[in-house]
């Protein structure tokens, strides 16, 4: 199981994560990232990894269970 962490203190509000994975991310009223789910669901691995890759500010982290 992979846990999702969205770091608002790093987020610059570009919104790219929402564009590629709206099921997992949104921007709050302050324009900064909010994770909509705590973990990556089966089959969504590559979608969420794309959001991680596209984030310019390294504000989305994935933690594999046990690590």
């Amino acid at each position, binding site marked *: 199981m992979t846990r999702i962490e969205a770091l608002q203190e790093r987020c*610059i*509000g570009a*919104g790219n994560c929402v564009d590629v994975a709206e099921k997992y991310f949104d*921007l709050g009223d*302050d*324009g900064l990232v909010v994770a909509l789910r705590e973990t990556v669901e089966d089959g969504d691995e590559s979608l969420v990894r794309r959001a991680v890759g596209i984030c*310019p*500010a*390294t504000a989305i982290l994935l933690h594999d269970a046990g690590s």
Partner: protein
Amino acid sequence: MTSYDLDAPEVDSGITWPPRRADPLLPPPAFDEVRARCPVSRVSLYDGSAAWLATRHDDMRALLRNPAMSANPRVGGYPNSSANHSASRNTQGGFIRMDAPEHDVQRRMLTKAFSVRQVELLRPYVEQLVDELLDGMAAAGGPVDLVAALAEPLPARAICKILDLPSSDAAFLLGRVATWMNLNSPPDVSAQASGDLAAFLDNLILRRLEKPGEDIVSHLVAQQFQQGAISRQDLVGMLQLLVVGGFDTTANMIALGTIAFLRFPDQAAELRAHPELAAPAMEELLRYLSVAHHVASRVATDDIMIRGVCIHAGDGVIAPIPAANHDPEVFEDPHVLNIRRDARDHVSFGFGIHQCLGQNLARIELQVVFVKLLQRFPDLRLAVAESDLDFRNSMIYGVPELLVTWGEA
């Protein structure tokens, strides 16, 4: 493991920056050759110094998101394209040239106003504006200079709307920015233009201080300046950045995008027939054209290992946006314009903490302008041969003028 330094002959690209283009709409072919042979390599700069050149998409992203890459041109080793580039970069203020944490503090003051949700509210205004500008073109009749009639006024009037300035101020702002950023302006003329703009914006701050409204400047004055969170000088620099950031970039996307659609009529026909493709089509156009071709330059503040080379603190790094956007490992047939591809991984708005603040606004402007332009003038064509156009190697790639026409010849 051995690693190469900047002076190692093994990593020499043989390129003097900037390399030449062969096709005016495509990146210099040298990027493809170097990416395959030595993806992080050495380039020579105009002043005889050397810098690193990163041509792969993944390396570009890794470097630009690395906190050891400074965007401050006053840090020794910062790579410039020419003496004029160097001078104009040094007169540029605002957080685009600051590093964390100062950068982040100032940028955050604007995050909400430029968020997708807020700028979407401007879409109806942008639509109305584009209709007006196209009406103007139709009334004037071809040939018309599309740059002066459409590409420049659109971003200028959009920013006027955001700053709550009368649209009659758009011409003043455009004129001052053009003189300031023109690499052929003598330094004193350029400095005068940037001074005029600063004085105008400083005066705007005073006006909003006296009589606040609902606009972004009023909010910045009340919530940041009056609370002591930003100095008056920094606020002027920030506003200057908002004005400058969207001008040449958006205008040249519109001008070059028009040239591209006219060169590839099947793509134009596809967008005309399927306006719902506007969003993906504009991501592809942004990728294909990569107008901010001299923008992603940094200087290392710490040693970094990447792809077998050691970038030392003080080394300059150039990660050209066109090179990353035409990396065949990420984009199949990268030199082909295909508005149906998923191009969202492009880096046309840069990468890292400086990724374009205005990207959501720019997207709306481009989506609206191309659908409407192609529908309004289905037989739009160049009024001069493409080979006679004056493609300019300025900070942002583009053409200063684009004569187009339509209807009966």
